[in-house]
Protein backbone atom coordinates (compact mmCIF):
# COMPACT_ATOMS: atom_id res chain seq x y z
CA UNK A 1 0.00 0.00 0.00
CA UNK A 2 2.64 2.46 0.98
CA UNK A 3 4.72 1.33 -1.97
CA UNK A 4 1.90 2.08 -4.32
CA UNK A 5 1.39 5.48 -2.80
CA UNK A 6 5.03 6.25 -3.15
CA UNK A 7 5.17 5.30 -6.83
CA UNK A 8 2.01 7.27 -7.39
CA UNK A 9 3.57 10.34 -5.88
CA UNK A 10 6.72 10.09 -7.91
CA UNK A 11 4.65 9.67 -11.06
CA UNK A 12 2.67 12.78 -10.15
CA UNK A 13 5.90 14.75 -9.90
CA UNK A 14 7.52 13.30 -12.99
CA UNK A 15 8.40 15.78 -15.68
CA UNK A 16 6.24 14.12 -18.33
CA UNK A 17 3.18 14.23 -16.11
CA UNK A 18 3.75 17.86 -15.09
CA UNK A 19 4.03 18.95 -18.72
CA UNK A 20 1.05 16.84 -19.72
CA UNK A 21 -1.05 18.19 -16.86
CA UNK A 22 -0.09 21.81 -17.53
CA UNK A 23 -0.92 21.46 -21.22
CA UNK A 24 -4.29 19.85 -20.47
CA UNK A 25 -5.25 22.55 -17.97
CA UNK A 26 -4.17 25.28 -20.38
CA UNK A 27 -6.14 23.71 -23.22
CA UNK A 28 -9.33 23.15 -21.24
CA UNK A 29 -9.42 26.66 -19.84
CA UNK A 30 -8.53 28.38 -23.10
CA UNK A 31 -11.43 26.54 -24.74
CA UNK A 32 -13.72 27.72 -21.92
CA UNK A 33 -12.61 31.36 -22.17
CA UNK A 34 -12.72 31.39 -25.95
CA UNK A 35 -16.22 29.97 -26.06
CA UNK A 36 -17.46 32.46 -23.45
CA UNK A 37 -15.90 35.35 -25.37
CA UNK A 38 -17.25 34.17 -28.72
CA UNK A 39 -20.76 33.56 -27.44
CA UNK A 40 -20.99 36.97 -25.76
CA UNK A 41 -19.34 38.92 -28.57
CA UNK A 42 -22.57 40.13 -30.26
CA UNK A 43 -23.80 41.49 -26.91
CA UNK A 44 -20.47 43.22 -26.25
CA UNK A 45 -20.57 44.92 -29.64
CA UNK A 46 -24.15 46.01 -29.14
CA UNK A 47 -23.24 47.49 -25.76
CA UNK A 48 -20.24 49.30 -27.18
CA UNK A 49 -22.23 50.87 -30.02
CA UNK A 50 -24.96 51.93 -27.61
CA UNK A 51 -22.35 53.36 -25.27
CA UNK A 52 -20.86 55.44 -28.10
CA UNK A 53 -24.28 56.77 -29.00
CA UNK A 54 -25.02 57.58 -25.36
CA UNK A 55 -21.76 59.51 -25.17
CA UNK A 56 -22.48 61.39 -28.39
CA UNK A 57 -25.82 62.45 -26.92
CA UNK A 58 -24.15 63.36 -23.66
CA UNK A 59 -21.61 65.59 -25.43
CA UNK A 60 -24.47 67.25 -27.30
CA UNK A 61 -26.46 67.70 -24.05
CA UNK A 62 -29.36 65.76 -25.50
CA UNK A 63 -29.69 63.25 -22.68
CA UNK A 64 -32.49 64.14 -20.29
CA UNK A 65 -31.22 64.24 -16.73
CA UNK A 66 -32.64 62.10 -13.94
CA UNK A 67 -34.42 59.80 -16.31
CA UNK A 68 -33.75 56.14 -16.76
CA UNK A 69 -32.62 55.58 -20.32
CA UNK A 70 -33.50 52.41 -22.16
CA UNK A 71 -31.57 51.38 -25.28
CA UNK A 72 -34.68 52.11 -27.35
CA UNK A 73 -34.98 55.66 -26.03
CA UNK A 74 -31.31 56.35 -26.71
CA UNK A 75 -31.64 54.99 -30.21
CA UNK A 76 -34.73 57.15 -30.80
CA UNK A 77 -33.05 60.38 -29.67
CA UNK A 78 -29.96 59.48 -31.67
CA UNK A 79 -31.98 58.90 -34.82
CA UNK A 80 -33.87 62.21 -34.56
CA UNK A 81 -30.95 64.44 -33.59
CA UNK A 82 -27.65 63.04 -34.79
CA UNK A 83 -26.43 62.54 -38.33
CA UNK A 84 -23.07 60.98 -39.10
CA UNK A 85 -21.35 62.86 -41.92
CA UNK A 86 -17.86 63.44 -43.29
CA UNK A 87 -15.89 66.48 -44.23
CA UNK A 88 -13.27 66.88 -46.93
CA UNK A 89 -9.99 68.71 -46.16
CA UNK A 90 -11.52 72.02 -47.25
CA UNK A 91 -14.26 71.63 -44.66
CA UNK A 92 -17.09 70.76 -47.05
CA UNK A 93 -19.63 68.44 -45.45
CA UNK A 94 -20.11 65.22 -47.39
CA UNK A 95 -22.71 62.51 -47.06
CA UNK A 96 -20.27 59.66 -47.34
CA UNK A 97 -16.60 59.10 -46.69
CA UNK A 98 -13.94 59.73 -49.30
CA UNK A 99 -10.24 58.92 -49.16
CA UNK A 100 -9.06 61.72 -46.88
CA UNK A 101 -12.30 62.87 -45.29
CA UNK A 102 -12.82 63.37 -41.55
CA UNK A 103 -15.67 61.84 -39.64
CA UNK A 104 -18.01 64.08 -37.66
CA UNK A 105 -21.58 64.23 -36.44
CA UNK A 106 -24.17 66.94 -36.99
CA UNK A 107 -26.65 67.81 -34.27
CA UNK A 108 -30.02 68.80 -35.71
CA UNK A 109 -33.53 69.54 -34.49
CA UNK A 110 -36.35 69.68 -37.01
CA UNK A 111 -33.82 69.72 -39.83
CA UNK A 112 -32.05 72.80 -38.39
CA UNK A 113 -28.36 72.29 -37.70
CA UNK A 114 -27.66 73.05 -34.03
CA UNK A 115 -24.00 72.18 -33.94
CA UNK A 116 -21.50 69.44 -34.62
CA UNK A 117 -19.55 66.80 -32.73
CA UNK A 118 -15.93 65.94 -33.32
CA UNK A 119 -14.59 62.54 -32.29
CA UNK A 120 -11.53 62.76 -30.05
CA UNK A 121 -8.94 60.03 -30.07
CA UNK A 122 -5.76 60.85 -28.25
CA UNK A 123 -2.97 59.31 -26.28
CA UNK A 124 -3.43 59.18 -22.54
CA UNK A 125 -1.05 58.18 -19.79
CA UNK A 126 -1.64 54.42 -20.05
CA UNK A 127 -3.54 54.07 -23.27
CA UNK A 128 -5.81 55.75 -25.75
CA UNK A 129 -8.54 58.15 -24.66
CA UNK A 130 -11.62 58.15 -26.86
CA UNK A 131 -14.38 60.71 -26.56
CA UNK A 132 -16.40 63.44 -28.22
CA UNK A 133 -16.26 67.22 -28.23
CA UNK A 134 -19.46 68.98 -29.26
CA UNK A 135 -19.67 72.53 -30.64
CA UNK A 136 -22.50 74.93 -31.06
CA UNK A 137 -23.38 76.10 -34.58
CA UNK A 138 -21.18 79.20 -34.23
CA UNK A 139 -18.10 77.03 -34.67
CA UNK A 140 -16.27 78.29 -31.60
CA UNK A 141 -18.28 77.55 -28.44
CA UNK A 142 -17.87 74.14 -26.86
CA UNK A 143 -21.25 72.56 -26.10
CA UNK A 144 -20.04 69.51 -24.26
CA UNK A 145 -17.42 66.83 -23.83
CA UNK A 146 -17.60 63.14 -23.06
CA UNK A 147 -15.27 60.17 -22.81
CA UNK A 148 -16.36 56.64 -23.65
CA UNK A 149 -13.16 54.70 -23.34
CA UNK A 150 -9.87 55.24 -21.55
CA UNK A 151 -7.39 53.37 -19.40
CA UNK A 152 -6.30 56.14 -17.03
CA UNK A 153 -5.70 55.45 -13.33
CA UNK A 154 -9.03 55.03 -11.54
CA UNK A 155 -9.57 57.90 -9.10
CA UNK A 156 -6.89 60.10 -10.69
CA UNK A 157 -6.79 60.36 -14.48
CA UNK A 158 -9.94 58.26 -14.51
CA UNK A 159 -11.78 61.33 -13.28
CA UNK A 160 -11.92 62.52 -16.91
CA UNK A 161 -15.12 60.51 -17.23
CA UNK A 162 -16.73 62.15 -14.22
CA UNK A 163 -19.57 64.59 -14.61
CA UNK A 164 -17.89 67.63 -13.01
CA UNK A 165 -14.88 67.40 -15.30
CA UNK A 166 -16.98 67.06 -18.42
CA UNK A 167 -19.37 69.85 -17.39
CA UNK A 168 -16.30 72.09 -17.21
CA UNK A 169 -16.10 72.26 -20.97
CA UNK A 170 -19.51 73.77 -21.56
CA UNK A 171 -19.35 77.32 -22.90
CA UNK A 172 -15.57 77.41 -23.39
CA UNK A 173 -14.29 79.12 -26.56
CA UNK A 174 -11.68 77.72 -28.94
CA UNK A 175 -10.96 81.14 -30.48
CA UNK A 176 -9.14 83.98 -28.75
CA UNK A 177 -10.01 87.68 -29.02
CA UNK A 178 -8.15 87.88 -32.36
CA UNK A 179 -10.15 84.98 -33.82
CA UNK A 180 -7.18 82.65 -33.72
CA UNK A 181 -7.53 79.00 -32.82
CA UNK A 182 -6.25 78.41 -29.29
CA UNK A 183 -8.11 75.15 -28.50
CA UNK A 184 -9.29 74.28 -24.99
CA UNK A 185 -6.75 72.97 -22.53
CA UNK A 186 -6.78 71.38 -19.14
CA UNK A 187 -5.38 73.74 -16.54
CA UNK A 188 -3.03 72.73 -13.76
CA UNK A 189 -5.34 73.23 -10.81
CA UNK A 190 -8.32 75.50 -10.97
CA UNK A 191 -9.00 78.02 -13.72
CA UNK A 192 -9.72 80.75 -11.16
CA UNK A 193 -5.97 81.13 -10.70
CA UNK A 194 -5.41 81.94 -14.36
CA UNK A 195 -5.42 85.41 -15.92
CA UNK A 196 -8.91 86.41 -16.98
CA UNK A 197 -8.05 86.38 -20.69
CA UNK A 198 -7.23 82.66 -20.49
CA UNK A 199 -10.17 81.50 -18.41
CA UNK A 200 -12.34 80.96 -21.49
CA UNK A 201 -9.85 78.52 -22.96
CA UNK A 202 -9.04 76.41 -19.93
CA UNK A 203 -10.97 73.92 -17.83
CA UNK A 204 -10.28 72.90 -14.23
CA UNK A 205 -7.58 70.26 -14.00
CA UNK A 206 -7.61 67.06 -11.97
CA UNK A 207 -5.15 67.00 -9.10
CA UNK A 208 -2.85 64.01 -9.32
CA UNK A 209 -3.46 63.66 -13.04
CA UNK A 210 -1.15 66.24 -14.58
CA UNK A 211 0.04 63.94 -17.37
CA UNK A 212 -3.45 62.82 -18.35
CA UNK A 213 -4.41 66.49 -18.57
CA UNK A 214 -1.37 67.36 -20.65
CA UNK A 215 -1.93 64.53 -23.14
CA UNK A 216 -5.62 65.32 -23.40
CA UNK A 217 -4.85 69.02 -24.03
CA UNK A 218 -2.37 68.09 -26.75
CA UNK A 219 -4.86 65.67 -28.29
CA UNK A 220 -7.66 68.23 -28.28
CA UNK A 221 -5.47 70.84 -29.93
CA UNK A 222 -4.32 68.43 -32.61
CA UNK A 223 -7.86 67.31 -33.36
CA UNK A 224 -9.18 70.85 -33.47
CA UNK A 225 -6.45 71.89 -35.89
CA UNK A 226 -7.48 69.02 -38.14
CA UNK A 227 -11.13 70.02 -37.99
CA UNK A 228 -10.46 73.76 -38.30
CA UNK A 229 -11.72 73.95 -41.94
CA UNK A 230 -15.07 72.55 -40.77
CA UNK A 231 -15.23 75.05 -37.92
CA UNK A 232 -14.45 77.89 -40.36
CA UNK A 233 -17.42 76.86 -42.52
CA UNK A 234 -19.62 77.01 -39.45
CA UNK A 235 -18.21 80.39 -38.38
CA UNK A 236 -18.95 81.85 -41.81
CA UNK A 237 -22.60 80.95 -41.39
CA UNK A 238 -22.68 82.66 -38.04
CA UNK A 239 -26.11 83.83 -37.03
CA UNK A 240 -28.00 82.20 -39.87
CA UNK A 241 -29.98 79.01 -39.39
CA UNK A 242 -28.81 76.24 -41.65
CA UNK A 243 -30.97 73.46 -42.99
CA UNK A 244 -29.44 70.02 -42.64
CA UNK A 245 -30.14 69.11 -46.26
CA UNK A 246 -28.74 72.36 -47.70
CA UNK A 247 -25.54 71.91 -45.75
CA UNK A 248 -25.23 68.41 -47.11
CA UNK A 249 -25.99 69.47 -50.69
CA UNK A 250 -23.61 72.41 -50.88
Amino acid at each position, binding site marked *: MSDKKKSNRSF*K*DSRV*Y*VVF*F*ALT*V*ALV*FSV*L*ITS*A*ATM*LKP*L*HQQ*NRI*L*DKKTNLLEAANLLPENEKMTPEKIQAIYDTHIREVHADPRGQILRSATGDSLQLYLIHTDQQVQGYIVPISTRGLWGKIHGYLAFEADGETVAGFSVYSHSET*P*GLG*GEIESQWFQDNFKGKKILNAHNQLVSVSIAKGRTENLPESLQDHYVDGISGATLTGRYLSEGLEETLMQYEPVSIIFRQKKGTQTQLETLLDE
Partner: protein
Amino acid sequence: MQNDLSHYKEILVKGIWRENPVAYQVLGICSALAVTVKMSTALVMSIALTLVAGFSGLIISSLRHLIPSNIRIIVELTVIASLVIITDQILQAYLYDISKQLSIFVGLIITNCIILGRAEAFALANNPADSFVDGIANGLGYSMILVAVAFLRELLGSGQFFGFSVIPQFVYDMGFQDMGIMVLAPGAFFVIGLLVWLKNSLPGISHEKK
Protein backbone atom coordinates in the same frame (compact mmCIF):
# COMPACT_ATOMS: atom_id res chain seq x y z
CA MET B 1 -27.53 13.95 7.08
CA GLN B 2 -28.04 16.04 10.18
CA ASN B 3 -24.36 15.72 10.74
CA ASP B 4 -23.63 16.88 7.19
CA LEU B 5 -25.79 19.91 7.58
CA SER B 6 -24.24 21.00 10.82
CA HIS B 7 -20.84 20.39 9.23
CA TYR B 8 -21.64 22.80 6.37
CA LYS B 9 -23.14 25.23 8.84
CA GLU B 10 -19.88 25.15 10.74
CA ILE B 11 -17.91 26.01 7.57
CA LEU B 12 -20.35 28.79 6.72
CA VAL B 13 -20.25 30.41 10.14
CA LYS B 14 -16.47 30.23 10.15
CA GLY B 15 -16.14 31.87 6.72
CA ILE B 16 -18.83 34.50 7.13
CA TRP B 17 -18.30 35.49 10.73
CA ARG B 18 -15.67 33.91 12.95
CA GLU B 19 -12.83 34.05 10.44
CA ASN B 20 -14.30 36.76 8.24
CA PRO B 21 -11.78 37.37 5.43
CA VAL B 22 -11.82 41.17 5.71
CA ALA B 23 -12.41 41.73 9.40
CA TYR B 24 -10.39 38.83 10.82
CA GLN B 25 -7.90 37.77 8.15
CA VAL B 26 -7.59 41.34 6.80
CA LEU B 27 -7.56 40.18 3.18
CA GLY B 28 -9.05 41.84 0.11
CA ILE B 29 -8.80 45.34 1.57
CA CYS B 30 -7.66 46.91 -1.70
CA SER B 31 -10.87 46.16 -3.56
CA ALA B 32 -12.92 46.89 -0.44
CA LEU B 33 -11.58 50.44 -0.60
CA ALA B 34 -12.04 50.84 -4.31
CA VAL B 35 -15.53 49.64 -5.09
CA THR B 36 -17.45 50.74 -2.01
CA VAL B 37 -18.36 54.29 -3.02
CA LYS B 38 -21.73 53.04 -4.22
CA MET B 39 -23.99 50.14 -3.27
CA SER B 40 -24.51 48.99 -6.87
CA THR B 41 -20.81 48.46 -7.63
CA ALA B 42 -20.18 46.88 -4.22
CA LEU B 43 -23.02 44.42 -4.68
CA VAL B 44 -21.97 43.34 -8.17
CA MET B 45 -18.36 43.00 -7.02
CA SER B 46 -19.52 40.91 -4.05
CA ILE B 47 -21.57 38.57 -6.19
CA ALA B 48 -18.73 38.20 -8.70
CA LEU B 49 -16.18 37.45 -5.99
CA THR B 50 -18.44 35.03 -4.13
CA LEU B 51 -19.11 33.01 -7.29
CA VAL B 52 -15.44 32.98 -8.27
CA ALA B 53 -14.44 31.91 -4.74
CA GLY B 54 -17.03 29.11 -4.68
CA PHE B 55 -16.31 27.67 -8.09
CA SER B 56 -12.53 27.99 -7.87
CA GLY B 57 -12.74 26.05 -4.59
CA LEU B 58 -14.90 23.41 -6.26
CA ILE B 59 -12.63 23.01 -9.30
CA ILE B 60 -9.32 23.11 -7.45
CA SER B 61 -10.57 20.66 -4.85
CA SER B 62 -11.77 18.27 -7.57
CA LEU B 63 -8.32 18.37 -9.13
CA ARG B 64 -6.41 18.20 -5.86
CA HIS B 65 -5.25 14.58 -6.30
CA LEU B 66 -4.13 15.28 -9.86
CA ILE B 67 -2.29 18.59 -9.48
CA PRO B 68 1.50 18.09 -9.40
CA SER B 69 2.72 19.90 -6.29
CA ASN B 70 5.48 21.84 -8.03
CA ILE B 71 3.12 23.68 -10.39
CA ARG B 72 0.33 23.90 -7.81
CA ILE B 73 0.10 27.69 -7.60
CA ILE B 74 0.26 28.12 -11.37
CA VAL B 75 -2.65 25.71 -11.82
CA GLU B 76 -4.66 27.45 -9.10
CA LEU B 77 -4.06 30.81 -10.74
CA THR B 78 -5.05 29.42 -14.13
CA VAL B 79 -8.36 28.22 -12.71
CA ILE B 80 -9.01 31.49 -10.87
CA ALA B 81 -7.95 33.72 -13.77
CA SER B 82 -10.15 31.82 -16.21
CA LEU B 83 -13.18 32.12 -13.93
CA VAL B 84 -12.54 35.84 -13.48
CA ILE B 85 -12.21 36.45 -17.22
CA ILE B 86 -15.46 34.61 -17.84
CA THR B 87 -17.17 36.64 -15.09
CA ASP B 88 -15.83 39.84 -16.63
CA GLN B 89 -17.12 38.83 -20.05
CA ILE B 90 -20.57 38.14 -18.62
CA LEU B 91 -20.63 41.48 -16.79
CA GLN B 92 -19.62 43.32 -19.97
CA ALA B 93 -22.43 41.62 -21.83
CA TYR B 94 -25.26 42.07 -19.33
CA LEU B 95 -24.24 44.88 -16.94
CA TYR B 96 -22.17 47.11 -19.19
CA ASP B 97 -22.48 50.32 -17.16
CA ILE B 98 -21.52 48.70 -13.89
CA SER B 99 -18.70 46.77 -15.50
CA LYS B 100 -17.34 50.09 -16.82
CA GLN B 101 -17.43 51.54 -13.31
CA LEU B 102 -15.76 48.48 -11.80
CA SER B 103 -13.14 48.80 -14.57
CA ILE B 104 -9.99 46.98 -13.57
CA PHE B 105 -11.29 45.78 -10.23
CA VAL B 106 -13.10 42.78 -11.69
CA GLY B 107 -9.84 41.73 -13.28
CA LEU B 108 -8.12 42.25 -9.94
CA ILE B 109 -10.29 39.56 -8.34
CA ILE B 110 -7.52 37.29 -9.66
CA THR B 111 -5.07 38.83 -7.25
CA ASN B 112 -7.53 39.02 -4.37
CA CYS B 113 -5.80 37.14 -1.57
CA ILE B 114 -9.08 35.69 -0.33
CA ILE B 115 -9.44 33.46 -3.36
CA LEU B 116 -5.88 32.16 -3.60
CA GLY B 117 -5.79 31.94 0.20
CA ARG B 118 -8.85 29.69 0.35
CA ALA B 119 -7.55 27.61 -2.56
CA GLU B 120 -4.24 27.01 -0.79
CA ALA B 121 -5.52 26.69 2.74
CA PHE B 122 -8.78 24.84 2.22
CA ALA B 123 -9.50 23.49 -1.27
CA LEU B 124 -6.27 21.50 -1.52
CA ALA B 125 -7.03 19.62 1.68
CA ASN B 126 -10.79 19.13 1.60
CA ASN B 127 -13.43 17.52 -0.62
CA PRO B 128 -15.11 19.50 -3.43
CA ALA B 129 -18.46 20.04 -1.66
CA ASP B 130 -16.81 21.41 1.49
CA SER B 131 -14.50 23.60 -0.60
CA PHE B 132 -17.42 25.02 -2.55
CA VAL B 133 -19.26 25.89 0.67
CA ASP B 134 -16.08 27.35 2.11
CA GLY B 135 -15.53 29.53 -0.96
CA ILE B 136 -19.11 30.78 -0.88
CA ALA B 137 -18.88 31.40 2.88
CA ASN B 138 -15.72 33.49 2.52
CA GLY B 139 -17.24 35.31 -0.41
CA LEU B 140 -20.31 36.11 1.68
CA GLY B 141 -18.13 37.26 4.57
CA TYR B 142 -16.33 39.61 2.20
CA SER B 143 -19.65 40.72 0.71
CA MET B 144 -21.09 41.47 4.13
CA ILE B 145 -18.29 43.90 4.96
CA LEU B 146 -18.29 45.38 1.46
CA VAL B 147 -22.02 46.06 1.45
CA ALA B 148 -21.92 47.50 4.98
CA VAL B 149 -19.06 49.83 4.03
CA ALA B 150 -20.76 50.82 0.78
CA PHE B 151 -24.04 51.48 2.58
CA LEU B 152 -22.39 53.89 5.02
CA ARG B 153 -20.22 55.55 2.39
CA GLU B 154 -23.03 56.09 -0.08
CA LEU B 155 -25.40 57.32 2.62
CA LEU B 156 -22.98 59.71 4.27
CA GLY B 157 -20.95 60.62 1.20
CA SER B 158 -23.68 61.27 -1.36
CA GLY B 159 -26.89 61.00 0.67
CA GLN B 160 -28.06 58.16 -1.53
CA PHE B 161 -29.05 54.50 -1.40
CA PHE B 162 -28.64 52.58 -4.69
CA GLY B 163 -28.50 55.94 -6.46
CA PHE B 164 -31.75 57.26 -4.95
CA SER B 165 -31.56 60.27 -2.66
CA VAL B 166 -32.77 59.19 0.77
CA ILE B 167 -31.77 62.07 3.01
CA PRO B 168 -34.79 64.40 3.11
CA GLN B 169 -34.35 68.01 2.02
CA PHE B 170 -35.12 69.47 5.47
CA VAL B 171 -32.03 67.79 6.88
CA TYR B 172 -29.94 69.66 4.30
CA ASP B 173 -31.88 72.83 5.07
CA MET B 174 -30.86 72.43 8.68
CA GLY B 175 -27.24 72.55 7.61
CA PHE B 176 -26.29 68.92 6.96
CA GLN B 177 -23.74 68.43 4.23
CA ASP B 178 -22.63 65.33 2.37
CA MET B 179 -19.32 64.20 3.81
CA GLY B 180 -16.81 64.48 1.01
CA ILE B 181 -14.28 62.29 2.78
CA MET B 182 -16.62 59.32 2.58
CA VAL B 183 -16.40 59.36 -1.22
CA LEU B 184 -12.60 59.21 -1.06
CA ALA B 185 -10.45 56.25 -0.05
CA PRO B 186 -9.70 57.51 3.49
CA GLY B 187 -13.43 57.31 4.25
CA ALA B 188 -13.35 53.62 3.44
CA PHE B 189 -10.36 53.13 5.72
CA PHE B 190 -12.20 54.70 8.64
CA VAL B 191 -15.39 52.75 8.02
CA ILE B 192 -13.56 49.42 7.63
CA GLY B 193 -11.51 50.13 10.74
CA LEU B 194 -14.63 50.90 12.75
CA LEU B 195 -16.37 47.77 11.48
CA VAL B 196 -13.41 45.56 12.37
CA TRP B 197 -13.33 47.08 15.83
CA LEU B 198 -17.08 46.62 16.22
CA LYS B 199 -16.98 43.00 15.09
CA ASN B 200 -14.10 42.09 17.33
CA SER B 201 -15.52 43.78 20.39
CA LEU B 202 -18.95 42.18 20.27
CA PRO B 203 -19.18 40.05 23.42
CA GLY B 204 -19.19 36.27 23.13
CA ILE B 205 -18.44 36.03 19.43
CA SER B 206 -15.05 37.63 19.36
CA HIS B 207 -12.33 35.44 17.90
CA GLU B 208 -10.18 36.27 20.90
CA LYS B 209 -12.51 34.41 23.24
CA LYS B 210 -12.87 31.23 21.22
